[in-house]
């Protein structure tokens, strides 16, 4: 393992493109405003689409009067659910073997009833972008309201109103993953720590809202859509709009962020295609931010009842978690699977002999949850890392010592954990040691005490994490494995041009990650050219191989690996051709310094350009060799990859107001071998900020009537630069044995690690005041209320994690929500 920091070049000098801290090839167009996002495109004759949406959470549709809208000048179509005939409902692709998942039908427009605020009931298409918005108010919908199901635990009680009458229950499914004897583990424990840990609902909130343009021409359609999965969208559309796949082209143009919320297929994509065919003209749809917060997938939203058994010396005997997951009213692509994904990493970094995770999903009258940056693993890591601190406190032990005591040691890798997955490589002691080189704990504790005596409440919190990514080995997650109806390989075509430059076509689909740079570095190194000579083409189902898209930190470990393998196939052929041209044996050719040369005789060598020309003007190529220089790879990983790290947050809490300020954030991450350290840091920064956002600021809140309280960016509070510190980042490099590149993935790591650092830090700051436990979000009011409660004082109606208000004793008041059990105590 080589140790590198973000500032230095590290002990091993970087010579080739791989590892180079190069600035991005995609930036010139983006910094000059020449990026081409969906809304930037205009097609001749283009019409605009807008949706009439339910303003109630749960109701039967009594009537829809379209007449005034239809009569409006410039309006070309007003259609409802009954008018739109599609061949298939919106897909949910998880079919776990042996597990029943109650699945409601989910059509692009509501049919007969609406089940969440924002549920689309009619679609309008018109010539004028502003005029269609005016027409929305013309459509008169009458509803017969039904009770709104909002609290997931109440929804599971007998006699609770049902979201879907025809399904007979609000329980979506039950699923479990475990290993070892959990009951024995708990009886062997000296102390069993129990907590009710809430991971509240958040939004993806990419700065570019969703949008699409459908252009149906005679017997084929092109859909430009802001998506993370263009090839998969094409596959789904084929069934929905009744057109064979090869006649559908889906293009992801420049995509302004995704964070999982665009790893999906949405109603509007189907509707735009349908209407473009219906009207014979291109149809554009863009969501407003208000629509985005209401009807683009939410994330998280689960309640975890955690039980961790400890010996008095801090050794963990077992970890049992029961999760109640609030999934919303309908499913999007992976909705019921996401909380289950958490179960795969419930061991964390630790040797835990028995781990059991039981999940129950619940329907509520809200929009669907689905993958949001981390997709299940932030929830797992939050639970584990908070429990580690809680256990340490109960045992009277140092939280870092408890972690060390239980870490899987470096020598044990590849390490199979209780639930049966195999972590590829790791050095958890290493990253924690490195973190502590940046954080002097003795000095901190002295400073903390000093500040406390001055009335300043400073705290430090840690999180040591491992995460599962590089989605995914197909046989593990596929139909007979976990049950996802798909493969999780990735594809690449590497095409060398006669001049010796190259183009990479990838099935990967970036939305800010820097594929055009990172993949260029990989391929350039394998081909012996420079990244400046490699173009990366992505996101267009017409121009490249079928691919699974970008999410789950799979860009490098799966997509980059595929590109690397395709490039190696090209290298092999180039070597054979070079050997032929140089009259040597293929095994005597090496690629060195940009030349394919005879080992030991560097004067006998050729650059790739010469070899390419020879391949395309095939006067002199070996017998049986095809002309051309282009290769394809479909790479299916053998295993997931497991990045890991150690983070620390220092916070200052104003105990009079409850406001938390992050004064320092230090992150040591190991994502295996670095392809481009600049890109790695950027992903870590963004991931941390995303998690701090959830921990302190962001919350999706539905009130008891199912109205979305956090409907705009006024209330859904993304942090600004003023709320965040600069981050101190460092890295270790423990290569992954799973792929040839040795990479592990880093896109979600920051988000996975950081929420528990925040909670642990605030609790550390407030322990002297008697606060021993808190759930997120750590809003000023909730922090202040926790302090009041710990001090025995009143704090008026309390705010729950779901944003509703209860009185101190937990029963409803002031028109607000249901009982909320005391923080951290019995369930």
């Amino acid at each position: 393992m080589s140790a590198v920091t973000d500032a230095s070049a590290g002990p091993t000098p970087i010579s080739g493109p791989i590892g180079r801290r190069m600035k991005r090839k995609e930036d010139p167009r983006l910094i000059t405003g020449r990026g081409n996002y969906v809304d930037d495109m205009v097609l001749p004759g283009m019409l605009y689409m807008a949706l009439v949406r339910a303003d109630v959470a749960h109701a039967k549709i009594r009537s829809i009067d379209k007449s005034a809208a239809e009569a409006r000048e410039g309006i070309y179509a007003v259609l409802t659910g009954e008018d739109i005939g599609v061949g298939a409902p919106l897909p949910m692709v998880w079919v776990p073997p042996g597990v029943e998942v109650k699945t409601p039908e989910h059509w692009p427009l509501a049919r007969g009833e609406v089940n969440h605020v924002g549920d689309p009931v009619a679609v309008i298409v018109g010539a004028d972008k502003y005029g269609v918005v005016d027409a929305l108010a013309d459509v008169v919908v009458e509803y017969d309201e039904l009770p709104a199901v909002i609290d997931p635990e109440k929804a599971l009680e007998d006699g609770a109103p049902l979201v879907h009458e025809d399904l007979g229950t609000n329980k979506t499914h039950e699923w479990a993953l475990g290993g070892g004897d959990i009951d024995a583990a708990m009886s062997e424990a000296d102390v069993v720590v129990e907590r009710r840990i809430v991971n509240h609902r958040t939004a993806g909130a990419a700065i570019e809202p969703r949008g699409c343009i459908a252009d149906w021409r005679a017997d084929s359609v092109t859909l430009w859509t802001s998506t993370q999965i263009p090839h998969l969208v094409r596959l789904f559309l084929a069934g929905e709009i009744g057109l064979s796949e090869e006649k559908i082209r889906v293009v992801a143009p420049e995509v302004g962020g995704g964070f999982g919320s665009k790893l999906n297929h949405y109603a509007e994509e189907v509707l735009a295609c349908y209407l473009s065919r219906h009207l014979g003209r291109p149809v554009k749809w863009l969501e407003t931010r208000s629509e985005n917060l209401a009807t683009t997938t939410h994330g998280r939203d689960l309640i975890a009842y955690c039980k961790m058994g400890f010996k008095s010396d801090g050794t963990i005997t077992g970890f049992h978690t029961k999760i109640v997951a609030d999934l919303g009213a309908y499913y999007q692509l992976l909705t019921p699977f996401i909380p289950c994904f958490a179960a795969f990493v419930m061991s964390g970094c630790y040797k835990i002999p028995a781990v059991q995770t039981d999940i129950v999903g619940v329907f509520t009258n809200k929009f669907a949850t689905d993958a949001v940056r981390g997709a299940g693993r932030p929830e797992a890591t939050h639970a584990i890392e908070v429990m580690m601190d809680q256990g340490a406190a109960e045992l009277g032990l140092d939280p870092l010592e408890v972690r060390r005591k239980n870490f899987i040691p470096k020598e044990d890798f590849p390490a199979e954990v209780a639930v049966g997955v195999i972590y590829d490589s790791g050095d958890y002691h290493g990253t924690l040691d490195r973190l502590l080189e940046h954080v002097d704990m003795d000095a901190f504790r002295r400073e903390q005490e000093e500040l406390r005596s001055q009335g300043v409440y400073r705290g430090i919190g840690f999180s040591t994490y491992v995460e599962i990514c590089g989605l995914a080995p197909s046989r593990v997650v596929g139909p007979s494995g976990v049950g996802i109806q798909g493969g999780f390989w990735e594809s690449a075509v590497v095409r060398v041009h006669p001049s010796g430059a190259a183009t990479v076509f990838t099935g990967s689909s970036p939305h800010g990650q820097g594929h055009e740079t990172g993949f260029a570095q990989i391929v350039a190194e394998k081909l012996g050219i420079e990244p400046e000579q490699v173009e990366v083409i992505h996101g267009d189902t017409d121009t490249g191989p079928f691919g699974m898209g970008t999410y789950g930190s799979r860009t490098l470990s799966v997509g980059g690996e595929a590109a690397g393998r395709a490039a190696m196939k090209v290298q092999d052929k180039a070597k054979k051709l070079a050997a032929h041209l140089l009259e040597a044996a293929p095994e005597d050719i090496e690629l060195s310094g940009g030349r394919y040369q005879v080992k030991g005789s560097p004067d006998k060598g050729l650059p790739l350009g010469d070899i390419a020309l020879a391949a395309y003007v095939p006067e002199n190529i070996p017998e049986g060799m095809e002309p051309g220089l282009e290769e394809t790879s479909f790479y299916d990983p053998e295993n997931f990859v497991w990045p890991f790290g150690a983070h620390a947050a220092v916070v200052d809490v104003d105990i009079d107001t409850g406001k938390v300020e992050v004064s320092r954030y230090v992150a040591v991450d190991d994502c295996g071998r670095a392809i481009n350290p600049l890109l790695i840091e950027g992903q870590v920064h963004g991931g941390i900020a995303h998690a701090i956002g959830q921990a302190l600021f962001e919350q999706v809140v539905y009130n008891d009537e199912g109205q979305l309280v956090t409907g705009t960016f006024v209330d859904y509070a993304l942090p600004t630069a003023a709320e965040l510190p600069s981050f101190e980042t460092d890295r270790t490099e423990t290569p992954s044995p799973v792929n040839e590149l040795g990479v592990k993935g880093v896109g979600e790591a920051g988000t996975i690690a950081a929420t528990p650092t925040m909670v642990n830090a605030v609790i550390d700051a407030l322990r002297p005041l008697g606060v021993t436990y808190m759930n997120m979000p750590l809003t000023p009011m909730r922090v202040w209320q926790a302090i009041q409660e710990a001090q025995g004082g009143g704090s008026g109606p309390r705010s729950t994690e779901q944003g509703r208000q209860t009185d101190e004793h937990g029963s409803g008041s002031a028109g607000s929500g249901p009982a909320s059990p005391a923080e951290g105590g019995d369930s």
Partner: protein
Amino acid sequence: MIPAEFDYAAPESLDDAISTLSQGGDGAKLIAGGHSLLPLMKLRFASPSLLVSLGKVPGLAGIERSNGGFKIGAMTRHAEVAAESDLGVMAHAAGLVADQQVRNRGTIGGSISHGDSAGDPPTVFLAAEGSVTAKGPNGEREIAATDMFKSYLTTAVAPDEVVTSVYIPALEGFGWGYEKFVRRSEDWAMVGVCALVKSNGGTCEDVRVALTHMGATPLRASATEEALRGQSLSPESIAAAAEQAAEGTNPPGDLNATPDYKKHLARVLTRRALTAAIAR
């Protein structure tokens, strides 16, 4: 995102603005910086049929000394007010409004006429006991701050009047503090407190405390003022006076704050604002 349709006029004199506004009837509304009105219109919470812009009316922007105080043209942007440090607490509060882009457009006259209790300039205006000059078809008049804020988003300015300037008195001898408590720096105040204190040898000769976002309008914390007037300006008496900051208030709760928490914040911020005012 898209406002409903409306007509637009950009008169080039104050008298034209007044007559256009009158002729426009009930559906006519003035637009200054537009950063209170346009966001409401874009969400279709407001749909005036005619917008009368003050953007081309000359002589409505600028800051000048007047009667020892300051006469600030109604169209003066928050950014300009913020840059005029002689304006003391009003400059400080203007500099806390939203973000730079909003401050470059939003105006002091617009903010005070809009009368949002969550805004910062109205609170300071109330504490400073300023006044506005409003001109309408029937002539010009002064409206004192104490008469200005009637109820939620409703001020004493008549629908056919144009606020032309804002007067902030000299505030000679007053130290000031403005404490704005926010989730994020660009947010409206969850609660804000403006304190003006005139000290006479360590005793409170006069004090004004006004509250942001503690009711339908900006409010004076009169119980605190009474408790402190004439008292020594010791930390103890400040704390005791601040304890009464929420007396008589009935703040509505919202996503970020229950009424009890708001009242608590009012007390904490009042103590801090008073402490800052004395230090100045």
